[in-house]
């Protein structure tokens, strides 16, 4: 079945989620980047943590996982 593209609401949810739990930071510096964006890398990091298929993109499974009630402590170490 074609994977339905993420809605704007999903995109916003993912942005907040990745900032809260995967240390996604505002992109700075030259906009031209080689390789996957920071956002895509963070999505992959989250997918890997939860044993989901690592695609770097917001598929249904990934958005569903982001909507589940959880603890507010990040999943990656942010030092102290």
């Amino acid at each position, binding site marked *: 079945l074609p994977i339905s593209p993420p809605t704007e609401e999903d995109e916003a949810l993912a942005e*907040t989620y990745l900032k809260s739990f995967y240390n996604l930071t505002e992109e700075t510096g030259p906009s031209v980047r080689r390789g996957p964006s920071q956002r895509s890398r963070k999505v992959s990091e989250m997918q890997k943590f939860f044993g989901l298929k690592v695609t770097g993109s917001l598929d249904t499974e990934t958005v569903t996982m982001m909507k589940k*009630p959880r603890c507010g402590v990040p999943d990656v170490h942010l030092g*102290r």
Partner: protein
Amino acid sequence: FSTFDNLKWQTNQLTYRIENYTPDMSEAEVDDSLERALQVWAKVSPLRFTRIYSGTADIMISFGSRDHGDFYPFDGPDGTLAHAFAPGANIGGDAHFDDDEDFSFSSNRGYNLFLVAAHELGHSLGLSHSNDPGALMYPIYSYTDPRTFLLPRDDINGIQSIYGSNPDVDPNPDKPGPTPPSTPDACDPTLVLDAVATLRGEKMFFKGRFFWRSYSQNSQPELNIIKTFWPEIPDNVDAAYESLLSDNVYIFKDRQVWALSGYDVVPGYPKNLQNLGLPNTVKKVDAALYNENSGKTLFFVGEYYYSYDEEKKKMDRGFPKRVDEGFPGMTSKVTAALQVQGNTYLFSGPNVFEYNMRTKRQSRVLGNSYFLPC
């Protein structure tokens, strides 16, 4: 498990203070929930907790919503339930609970405060998140009955890697305590699955309170807790199958059967096995499969199997038959069953016996990993 690197308490004698209360429960229920949550960790480590009622404790516990005085505002109902800080001075060790949540004492209404607190206090003691879906320190909330809660092995390993084991417990081999629950491992060659079923192109493999979900586009099956998908479905199911006739998945435990339509539980279930026409003597089903060649459903019960006609909603005559009569060479107990592309797979212990339904011959003996990759 994982820890906050070298952040740990330098003493095993810790103090805690409950600064305020949630209106969702009585103060006594909050006190009890938090005390039991601390004891979860005290039981398996040298840590000991003393409550104080004024001044600054190592672990300050409070309820707040939205912006509540640290740089991590809560987000309203659901989403983030609580957070806590790694061991250290000042805010270190403190635990904050989002009071926009509906916390509960014993039922699975809202979020059970004991379970949320046991997780958060794990952070207060130096544990960060585990990626083991069965661990208490897994970031996603999942309800388990607090009365039968046992700290999983992964979490015990985590806290003991920081502080060591509980010196007050004599490991008396004659009286071993309850075995800490472990998360099943798809790579375990001795793994015996409870049940296997297809679900609209996906496959589900049940074990204990978990199930693996393998959907075609994802090579690595996803491990989930059954109750995070279906709170009504019990752990340790006996059998499961997908009916291509009703487009439901039926899940069996003891004398009861539940029906799933996609990821929703069908109202009116659970029903009794006798509703399917199974005789009263049948106390449980070991395995079940829907044979799309014949349109019949096969129920495996010990050394016998029954054939059920879903269209006529009654058992076929001439059954039960011995399993090795319908499946020559199948002499061991069938623990799960599956039909894929016209072949029937009978799981028995860690082995999988493939049968060609036309010739009724056993064509291969496989391992679990044929369907459930390590």
